[in-house]
C-alpha cells in the first residue's frame, strides 16, 4: 500500500481545478456537437470525450503508484521509443487532410505528437538535474538539450503539425530558459538566426515555394482566406456579451462556420454561450491550475521533480495561451487544442499523464529528505 505521507502530500486543489476545467470542456463539446447528439444519442463525440476523460483520469491515478524518480533511468528509452514512433507516423501514418498525425497500434489510433511533449519534459528535467549541470550552464552543456528538442520538433513539423511543433518547442524552450541561458548566448542565437533566415525566406525561396511552405504548414487554411475562421470566431465570442446567450442557445456554433469547432475552436463555443464571465472563469481556472503546478515545483526539494513540474506547468500554459490567443484573433491560426477542453483522446490522455507527473512530484516531495 501507499505510504500515508504520500497521500497527505497529494494536492487535492489541483484535482478540483482540473475537474472544473473538464466540466467546462464537456459542456462546450455537448453544445458544439448537439446536432450529432440528437441524431445518435449513444454514439457521439460527447460520449467519446467522457470515455477519453475517464481513461485519462484512470491512467493518471495509476501513474501515481510509480515513483517519478524511476523515470530518470528509463527516460532515454522512452525518448528513443517516441522518436521511433514519430518516424513511424511519417512512414505508416493515416493521411487526414494531407497530413499524417495518427498511428494505429492494435486497433487504437493515437497521435505520438501529443505524448512526445511529456517525454521531452522528463528527458530535459533529467538532463538539467544531473550532477554537472548547474543554472546558467556553459554553452556546450546546452548543445545536448537543444539537439534533444530539435529532433522531435522536426519530425512533428514534417507530419506536418505546426501547432504541436510549436507547443513542443515552447515547452522545451521554456525549460531551457528556466534553467537559465546567459544573455551572451541568447544574443548570439538571435543575431545568427535573423540574418540567416531573412535572406533564405526572401531570396532563396521563390514566391510559389513560400506559398507551398505556408500551405504545408497549415493545410487546413480556409479557401476563403485565413481571415474567415477568425472573423467567425470573433462574432461567436463577441456575441456572447457579458453573460452569454445561455447553454445550447448559441447560434454561431450551429452554423458550420468552423470545421473543427469541437477541437481547436472550442473556446469560441464556450465564449458565445457563457459570455465574458464564463471566459474569465475559464482563464482564471487555467491560471490557478498553472499556479498550483508551479507551487509543486517550488515546494519540491528535488531538482528533477521541480523541473518536471515546471515543464508540466509550461506545457499547459503554452497550449492554453496559444489556443486562446488564436481564437481571439491575436495569434495566427495553428492547430493546438485547448488543454482538457478540446475534444481529442490523445491530447486528454497525454495531459492527464502530465498532471499525474506533477502530483507524483508533490506526493514525494519529502521522501528525499530522509535519503
Amino acid at each position, binding site marked *: 500500500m501507499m505510504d500515508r505521507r504520500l497521500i497527505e502530500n497529494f494536492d487535492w486543489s489541483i484535482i478540483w481545478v482540473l475537474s472544473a476545467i473538464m466540466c467546462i470542456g464537456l459542456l462546450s463539446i455537448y453544445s458544439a456537437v448537439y*446536432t*450529432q447528439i440528437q*441524431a*445518435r444519442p449513444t454514439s457521439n463525440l460527447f460520449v467519446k470525450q467522457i470515455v477519453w476523460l475517464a481513461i485519462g483520469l484512470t491512467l493518471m491515478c495509476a501513474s501515481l503508484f510509480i515513483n517519478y524518480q524511476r523515470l530518470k533511468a528509463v527516460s532515454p528509452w522512452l525518448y528513443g521509443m517516441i522518436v521511433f514512433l514519430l518516424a513511424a507516423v511519417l512512414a505508416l501514418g493515416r*493521411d487526414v487532410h*494531407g497530413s499524417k498525425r495518427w498511428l494505429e497500434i492494435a486497433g487504437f489510433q493515437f497521435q505520438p505528437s501529443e505524448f512526445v511533449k511529456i517525454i521531452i519534459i522528463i528527458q530535459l528535467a533529467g538532463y538539467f538535474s544531473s550532477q554537472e549541470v*548547474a*543554472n*546558467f550552464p556553459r554553452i556546450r552543456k546546452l548543445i545536448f538539450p537543444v539537439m534533444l528538442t530539435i529532433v522531435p520538433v522536426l519530425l512533428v513539423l514534417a507530419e506536418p503539425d505546426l501547432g504541436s511543433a510549436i507547443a513542443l518547442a515552447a515547452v522545451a524552450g*521554456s525549460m531551457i*530558459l*528556466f534553467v*537559465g541561458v546567459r544573455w551572451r548566448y541568447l544574443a548570439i542565437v538571435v543575431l545568427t538566426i535573423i540574418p540567416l533566415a531573412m535572406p533564405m525566406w526572401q531570396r532563396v525561396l521563390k514566391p510559389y515555394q513560400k506559398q507551398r511552405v505556408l500551405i504545408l504548414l497549415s493545410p487546413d487554411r480556409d*479557401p*476563403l*482566406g485565413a481571415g*474567415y475562421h477568425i472573423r*467567425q470566431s*470573433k*462574432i*461567436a*465570442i*463577441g*456575441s*456572447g*456579451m*457579458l453573460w452569454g446567450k445561455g447553454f445550447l442557445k448559441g*447560434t*454561431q456554433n*450551429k*452554423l*458550420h*462556420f468552423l470545421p473543427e469547432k469541437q477541437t481547436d475552436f472550442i473556446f469560441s463555443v464556450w*465564449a*458565445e454561450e457563457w*459570455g*465574458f464571465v464564463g*471566459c*474569465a472563469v475559464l*482563464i*482564471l481556472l*487555467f*491560471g490557478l491550475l*498553472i*499556479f498550483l503546478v*508551479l507551487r509543486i*515545483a*517550488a515546494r519540491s526539494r528535488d*531538482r528533477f521533480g*521541480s523541473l518536471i513540474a*515546471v515543464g508540466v*506547468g*509550461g506545457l499547459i*500554459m503554452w497550449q492554453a*495561451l496559444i489556443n*486562446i*490567443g488564436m481564437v*481571439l484573433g*491575436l495569434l495566427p491560426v495553428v492547430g493546438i487544442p485547448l488543454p482538457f477542453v478540446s475534444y481529442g483522446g490523445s491530447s486528454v490522455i497525454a495531459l492527464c499523464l502530465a498532471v499525474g507527473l506533477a502530483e507524483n512530484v508533490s506526493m514525494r516531495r519529502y521522501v528525499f529528505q530522509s535519503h
Partner: protein
Amino acid sequence: MSLESAEALSFKKQYIVFFAVMLLVMMIYLARLWYLQVLCGQFYRYQSENNRIRVEDVVAPRGIIYDRNGVPIVENRPAYDLMIIREDVKDLNGTIEELARLCECNPSDLFAVLEANKSTPKFIPLRLVSDIDRDCLARVESELIRLPGVEIVIEPKREYNWDGTAAHLIGYLSQITEGELKSGKYPGYYPGEDIGKVGVEYGFEKYLHGVRGHRQVEVDAVGRRTRLLEEQPPVAGHDVWLTIDMDVQRTAESLLEGKAGAIVALDPNNGEVLAFASSPTYNQEKFIKGLSEHDWHEMAKDPGHPMLNRVCGAAYPPGSTYKPLVALGALQSGAINPSTTFLCPGYLSFAGRQYHCWRKGGHGTISVERALMQSCDVFFYHTGLLMGVDRLAEYVKMFGLGAKTGIGLPGENPGLIPTSAWKRRATGHPWEKGETISISIGQGYDLVTPLQMAVAYGAIANSGKLWRPFVVKRIEGMAKGEVQAAGPLLKLEIPVDPRWFALVQKALSEVVSDPRGTAHSLYDPAMPLAGKTGTAQVVGLGRGKAGVNNKDDAWFVAYAPASDPKICVAAIVEHGGHGGSAAGPLVKQVMAAYLKSRHEPAQK
C-alpha cells in the same frame, strides 16, 4: 551546501518571471475579451442574430472536349437543382407536398431525401431534385417567395452534343463515392461532386475538373441572401482537344449500328487515334441525373454489354490478322525466307491430328507472299512449328501485343500472347506443340484488342515505327510535352529488316488488289488499301451459347493509301462471319470518310 552552489541551483527568480509572463498574457486576453464581448458585444450580437453568414460552393464548369478540328463534342449547360434548407422552413411537410405538386413528382421521393440526410445538420442545404426541367423551374420560381428555405441553385452540367457518341472514349460523370474520397486520389474534392468515371473524363480528370469557387453570403432570418460578402469565383477546367475526327467517328459508329464490335482508326505516322467506336454504346446523359438502381441493373443485364469498351477493354483472338506479324517474325529470325515454300493439301497432320486450312482443297505449293494474300493456314502452321512458341512470342510482342498500349484510358486490357513459361505458370502443364499450330494463325490462347491490332498494323505500314496511341492532342494552358499522356511517343523502332517489311506490305496490298486476295471485293484503284482479313472462331470463349448467333468474329485491319499510309483501321464485328465481307467494307468506308475530311474539316 555552500551558499554559492545553493544560489546556482535555486529557481526563485525564474518562478517570478514565469508567473509574471503568464499573468501579463492573461491580462491581455481578458482585456481583449472585454473589448470583444462588452465594448463590441452589441455589434457582434447583432451580426450573429440578424445576419448569418453562409459559405456556398460554386461548382466549376468542366473543361470542354473538342475533336481534332475544334468541333465541341461535350460542353456544359446550366442545370437547375431544387434545394431545401430545413432550418429555414416553417412547415416542412407542407413545403415538401407543395414542391412535389409544383414539380409533378412523388412526395415520397422527396421525403426519402430528407430521411436519408436525417443526421446532416439542418442548416446545410439538401438537394431535393437535381436538374429540374424548365416548366418545373418556372412554377417553383414564381412560388419561391412563399416558400422560405427553398432555393434553386444553378450548376453547370455536361451536355453531350451527340449523346452516346464516343461514349467509351469520353466516359461519363458520376458522383464521387466515399471510397474515392478516402482513397487520397482526389485531394480537395467534396462529397457530392461529379468526377469522370471512365474514359477521357477519368484519365484527364485533373485537367478537366477545374477548381470550385466559394461564395460567402449573409442570409437573413429566413435564409434569403442579403449580401455577398466575399467571392472566390470558380476556375473552369482546362479544355481538351481530342485526336479523333468527328466525321470519321460518326461514320464508324453508324457503320456499327445494330452490331456488336469495334472500329478504331489511327494515324500510323504518330499514333493519333482518329476514331474510337465501340458498339453497342450507352447514353452518357443518363448518368447526369444519377442513374437509378433500375437503370443500372438494366444496363448490367443487357446481353450486348453496352458498357464494355470493345476497342481496348475487350480482347479477342486475332485470327488471320495475326499472320503478317508471324510472317515478319519468321523472316527476321531466319525460320523462313521469301522463297521458302510449303505444300498445302488443305490440312496438316501433326501428332495424330489433322489441322485444317480454311480452304478445303488446299493452296498447293505456296510461299509467304501468296500465303498472306490467300491467308493459307497450313503455311503458317509450318512456319509456327519452325519458330516455336517462345521465339514467335518474342517477335510478336515487339509489335505491342500482349501488353497495354499506354493509351491513357482506364481499364485497358493487355490481351495475351502465350509463351511456354506463361502456360506452365498459368495452368501447371507444359506447352504442347499442337498448341503452337493454333497460335500461329491467331487462335488458341492468343488474345488482342482492336486497338493493339491497329497499332501493330500502323508499325507495319511505316516499316517498323511503333507509336504509342494517344487520344488527347492538346490541353488548354499546357505546353507541348507537359502532359505525358498527350502527344506522340515513339515506343520502339522494331528491329526487323526493311526488306521484310516491304515484302509483307506488298502482300497486304495484294490481299485487296490481286483477284485471288481474300479482300479483293474492296478493291478500288482510287483508294489503294492494304490489309488483312481475319475470321476468329469463338468456340470455347463462353460466348457461343445456345440460341445466340454462333458465327465467327470478323476482323479486318488495314491501312491506306497503301503507298503512303495516312490512316490505319482495325475493325471487329462480333459473330460477323467472314472478315473480308463483314468487317472489310466498314474499314473501307471509315478510311474514305477520313481521307475526304482531311480536305474539308467537319462541321457541327
